[in-house]
C-alpha cells in the first residue's frame, strides 16, 4: 500500500499524534510550528482525499486490517471529504493566525499545551468526519469536546471558566444522549458500522427502541450543534474563548455536528424514516426558523462583538437545519453548501475580530469606534465578511440563500422563504452596527496607538475573505460537491 492509500487515517492521525509532541517539546514556538505543520499536512491529505473520491466512489479504509462490519472502518465519501477539507483548511489558517494571537492571550508556560489541546480538538473533529463507525463517532466526539472545554477555559477573561463549565455540562449531556442512542441501535441490530446499520435498520424501524434511539441521537446531536433551544452554551463559550479558538470552533465544530446530523438522519436512518415516518422534518424546520429569527434578533442587541457573532452563528445553524428539514435534494444541497460557506464567512469574521482583540485588547462595540481609520484592512475584512453573512451578491452567502429559498419555493412554502429573507434583513441590522461604529464613531481619546494587525494575521483573514468572494462567483466546486453529496444522501433513503 502506498502512502496515498493511508490518507483517510492520516488526516486524523497527523494532528492526533502531533498533540503529545507539542507537550513533549513544551516550547511556545516549537509547539506552534508543530501544530501548523500538522494542520497543513492534514489539509494536504484532505485535498488528496477529495480528489480521490471526486469521481463518486467512496473509499473504505479498514483499521488494522479488520474487515467491516467487525473492524472499525474509515469511510470517505464525497460529503466527508468535503467537510474534512473545510475542517483541515480552517485549522491550517487558524494555526497560521494563532502565533501572535495566542502569544498575547495565553500565558507563555501554557502555550505548547494549548496547541496540544487545540490539535486534539481538531483531530477529534476530523475523526468524526472520517469514521464509518457509529461508536467511533462518539469516541472522537468526546476527544474533541474534552479538548474544546480545555481550550475555551484558557481564555483571558475569567468568565471563560464559567463558559467552559457550562459547555462541559451541556456537551456531556449531549454526548451521553448520543451514546444511549447508539446503544439502542446496537441492541436492535448488533452492529456499529454505519453502512451495516443503514442496511439493517429498516427491518426493525417500527420498534419503540429504534424510535427512542433516534430521539436520543437527535437531541444529543442537537446539543452539540447548538440547535435552538439547545444553544445556550454557545454564546458564552464563543465570547470568552481565546480568539483563535473561537474562530476555529465557530468555523468547524458546529459544522461537523451538522454533518453528523446529516449522516445519521439521512443515511443511517434514511430520509424516509427520519423526515417521513418521524416528524423530524417539521421539527427541524420549525426550530430552524425560530432559531434563525430569535438569535438574529438577540444579536442585534449585543455589545460584545464576539457574542454578537456567536448569536449570528446560532441563527446560521437555523438555515442549515431548515435546509435539512425541507427533505429535498435542493434543501440538502443548501444545507451542505451552507456548511462550507458559513465556515468561510464566520472564519473570516472571527479571525478579523481576533486581530482587533490582538491590537485593541477588547472587542465591545465601543472598542470598534474609529477602527476604520486605525485598522483599515481588518475592518474592510469585517465589512466584506458581514456582507457575505447578510447574503449580498457576489458573496458565498448569496449562493447559500439562493438555494435555500429555491428549496422552500419548490415545495410551495413561500411564507418560509419570506422568513428566510427577513432573517437576512436582521443580519443587515447587526452587521451595520459594526460598520457604523468602525467608520463613524471617533476613536476614543488616547487609544490612537493601535495600528494594523501583522501580516501573519491579515493573510489568513484575507485568504478567507477572498474565498468568500471567489466561491460566490465561481461556484463549480462547492455547488457541484454539495449537489452530488445531497443526491447521494437523499437518494440513499428513497
Amino acid at each position, binding site marked *: 500500500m502506498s502512502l496515498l492509500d493511508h490518507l483517510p487515517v492520516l488526516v486524523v492521525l497527523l494532528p492526533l499524534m502531533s498533540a503529545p509532541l507539542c507537550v513533549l517539546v513544551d516550547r511556545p514556538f516549537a509547539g506552534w510550528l508543530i501544530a501548523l505543520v500538522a494542520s497543513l499536512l492534514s489539509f494536504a491529505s484532505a485535498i488528496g482525499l477529495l480528489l480521490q473520491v471526486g469521481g463518486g466512489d467512496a473509499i473504505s479504509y479498514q483499521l488494522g486490517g479488520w474487515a467491516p462490519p467487525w473492524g472499525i472502518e474509515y469511510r470517505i465519501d464525497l460529503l466527508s471529504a468535503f467537510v474534512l477539507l473545510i475542517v483541515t483548511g480552517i485549522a491550517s489558517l487558524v494555526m497560521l493566525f494563532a502565533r501572535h494571537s495566542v502569544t498575547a492571550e495565553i500565558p507563555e508556560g501554557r502555550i505548547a499545551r494549548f496547541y496540544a489541546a487545540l490539535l486534539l480538538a481538531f483531530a477529534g473533529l476530523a475523526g468524526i468526519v472520517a469514521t464509518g463507525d457509529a461508536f467511533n463517532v462518539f469516541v472522537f466526539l468526546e476527544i474533541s469536546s474534552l479538548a474544546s472545554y480545555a481550550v475555551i477555559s484558557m481564555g483571558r477573561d475569567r468568565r471563560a471558566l464559567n463558559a467552559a463549565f457550562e459547555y462541559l455540562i451541556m456537551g456531556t449531556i449531549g454526548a451521553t444522549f448520543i451514546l444511549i442512542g447508539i446503544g439502542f441501535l446496537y441492541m436492535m441490530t448488533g452492529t456499529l458500522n454505519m453502512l451495516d446499520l443503514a442496511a439493517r435498520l429498516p427491518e426493525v424501524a417500527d420498534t419503540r427502541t429504534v424510535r427512542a434511539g433516534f430521539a436520543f441521537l437527535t437531541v444529543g446531536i442537537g446539543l452539540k450543534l447548538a440547535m435552538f433551544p439547545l444553544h445556550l452554551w454557545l454564546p458564552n463559550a464563543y465570547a470568552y474563548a481565546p480568539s483563535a479558538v473561537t474562530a476555529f470552533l465557530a468555523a468547524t465544530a458546529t459544522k461537523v455536528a451538522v454533518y453528523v446530523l446529516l449522516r445519521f438522519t439521512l443515511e443511517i436512518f434514511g430520509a424516509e424514516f427520519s423526515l417521513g415516518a418521524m416528524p423530524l422534518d417539521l421539527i427541524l424546520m420549525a426550530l430552524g426558523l425560530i432559531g434563525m429569527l430569535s438569535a438574529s434578533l438577540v444579536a442585534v442587541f449585543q455589545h460584545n462583538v464576539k457574542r454578537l457573532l456567536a448569536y449570528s452563528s446560532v441563527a446560521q445553524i437555523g438555515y442549515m437545519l431548515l435546509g435539512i428539514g425541507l427533505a429535498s435534494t435542493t434543501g440538502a444541497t443548501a444545507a451542505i453548501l451552507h456548511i462550507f460557506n458559513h465556515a468561510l464567512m464566520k472564519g473570516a469574521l472571527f479571525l478579523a475580530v481576533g486581530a482587533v482583540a490582538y491590537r485593541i485588547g477588547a472587542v465591545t462595540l465601543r472598542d470598534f469606534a474609529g477602527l476604520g481609520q486605525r485598522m483599515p484592512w481588518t475592518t474592510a475584512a469585517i465589512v466584506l465578511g458581514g456582507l457575505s453573512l447578510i447574503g449580498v451578491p457576489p458573496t458565498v452567502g448569496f449562493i447559500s440563500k439562493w438555494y435555500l429559498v429555491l428549496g422552500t419555493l419548490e415545495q410551495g412554502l413561500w411564507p418560509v422563504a419570506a422568513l428566510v429573507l427577513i432573517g437576512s434583513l436582521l443580519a*443587515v441590522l447587526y452587521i451595520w452596527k459594526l460598520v457604523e461604529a468602525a467608520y463613524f464613531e471617533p476613536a476614543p481619546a488616547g487609544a490612537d496607538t493601535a495600528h494594523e494587525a501583522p501580516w501573519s494575521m491579515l493573510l489568513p483573514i484575507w485568504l478567507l475573505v477572498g474565498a468568500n468572494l471567489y466561491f460566490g462567483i465561481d461556484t463549480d466546486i462547492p455547488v457541484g460537491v454539495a449537489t452530488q453529496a445531497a443526491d447521494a444522501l437523499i437518494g440513499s433513503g428513497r
Partner: protein
Amino acid sequence: MTPELLLTWIPLLPFGAAIGVVLARNHPNLRDGISIAAGVILFVLIAALAANLDWEAPPTLVMATPVAGLSLALTPEPLGILFALIASLLWPITTVYAVGYMRTNREHNQTRFYAAFAVSIAAAMCIALAGNMLTLFVFYEVLSISTYPLVTHAGTDKAKRAGRVYLGLLMGTSIGFLLLAMIWTWSLTGTLDFTAGGVFGDDTDSGMLSVLLMLYVLGTGKAAVMPFHRWLPAAMVAPTPVSALLHAVAVVKAGVFTVVKVSVYIFGIDTISAIAAADWLLALSGFTIIAASVIALNKDNLKARLAYSTISQLSYVVLGCALATSMGIIGGSMHIAMHAMGKITLFFCAGAIYTAAHKTEISQMDGLGRVMPITYGAFLIGALSVIGLPPLGGSWSKWFLLVGAADAQQMAMIAVLLVSSLLNVAYLVPVAARGFYRGPPSGAHTGHVAIREAPLACLVPLCLTAFGCLLLFVYADALYAFLLPIAAPATTP
C-alpha cells in the same frame, strides 16, 4: 475593437478608474483627471458599442456562472445602451462639476468620494448591460453599497441616520421582495434571461403573476414607488454632485430601468396588460406622481423639493410600464433620458447656489437670479424640461406617455399626467421667479462678500446639461427610432 472586447472594457474601465483614484490620492489634479478621462473614454466606448451592434444577434459576455444555468452575463440591447449612454455622458460632466463643488466647499475625504463614485458608475454600467435578472440584481446591490459612503459622506449624525434609511430601505426591499420574486421566477420558469415577450408561459396563473409583478416593482426600491420612497429624500444629505448624478440619474434611473426591463423582458407587455396587477400598479404610480408633487410643493429646502419631484417623475416611467402599451413603454423609456438631463441641471443649479451663496432654503433665495443669471437661466430651462414644455426634451416623453394612456383608454391617467404637469409648474417655476423678480430681502447680500456666480467648473457643466435639454427636443425622433424595437412585440400581437 470587437463588441465582445468593448463589453469587457465598459465595466472594467470605471473599476480601474476607482483603483487609479485611490493610487493617485496624493495628487488631487491627477486623481480628478483620471475620473474625467475615464468618463470620456467610457462614453466613447459605449457609443462605439452602440454604433456597430447587430441587434438581431447581440454579443454576450459571460463573466461567471454562479448557479448552474444562470450566469453573470452582459448583453446590450437598446434600452440598456440608452441608459449606459446617459450615465456615461453625465459622469465626466458631473466630475468637472464635482471638482468645482468639492474644492470650493473644502469637502474632506475627496479620494474616497471619487473612488466610490467610479465604482457606482461601474455598477450602473453592468446594470444597464445586464443580460439577465441575476446580473442586474448583483450589480443593483453593488450600487446600493457603493453609494452608501457617498450618502454618509459628511459623517455627521444626520448623515448616519440618512445612511441607515437609505441602506435599510434599498436592501430591505431588494432582499425581501426582489430576490424572492427572482427565485420564484426561476423556480417557475427555469430562466431569468431577458427574453423578448417575457419568460412566463401562457398557462401561468394570472393571480400569481400579479403578486410577482408587485414583488418586482416594490422590490425595486430604487424606483422610489410609494411607500418605499423615503430613502431618496434621505439621500439628499450627500454632497450635491452625488445628488445630481446618482440620485437624479444613475441610482434612480437604475431603479426604473429595472422596472422597464422586468416589464418588457420578464413579463412581456402582453402579459402585463392581461393581469390585474397592472391596474394596481397604475393606481400606485398615479398616486405617487400626485402625492410626491404635493409634498414637493410644501418643501422649502431646494434639494428636498427636487428629491420629491424626482420621486414623482420616476413614477412616470413606472406608469408607462403599467399602461402596457407600446407608446407607454417608449414614453417611459424616453423619460429616463429626458428627466435625467433636466433634473441633473436642476441639481447642478442647486449646488451652484449653495456654493456661491450658501443658501439651501428657497425662501432665502429671493433676488439671487439677478446676481447669478446664468445659473438661474439654466435652472429655468431645466425646470421647463421637467415640466414638459417645448422646445425642451421633457415634452416628448410626456407626449408619448399621454398617447400611451390614450391607447390604453386610461382617462384617469391622462388626468393624472396633466394635473402633475400643473403641479410641476407650481413647485418649480416659483423658484426661478423668486430669483429674478423679487428683490433681495433688505439687509441681505450686503456683507463683506458680494455673491457672484459659482466657479467656472460648476457653471460650465450646468450650461452643458441645459443645452442638452434643448438638443434632446430636436433629436427625439432618433431616440424614438432607437427605442422602437423594445416595444415591437406588443405592436404585433
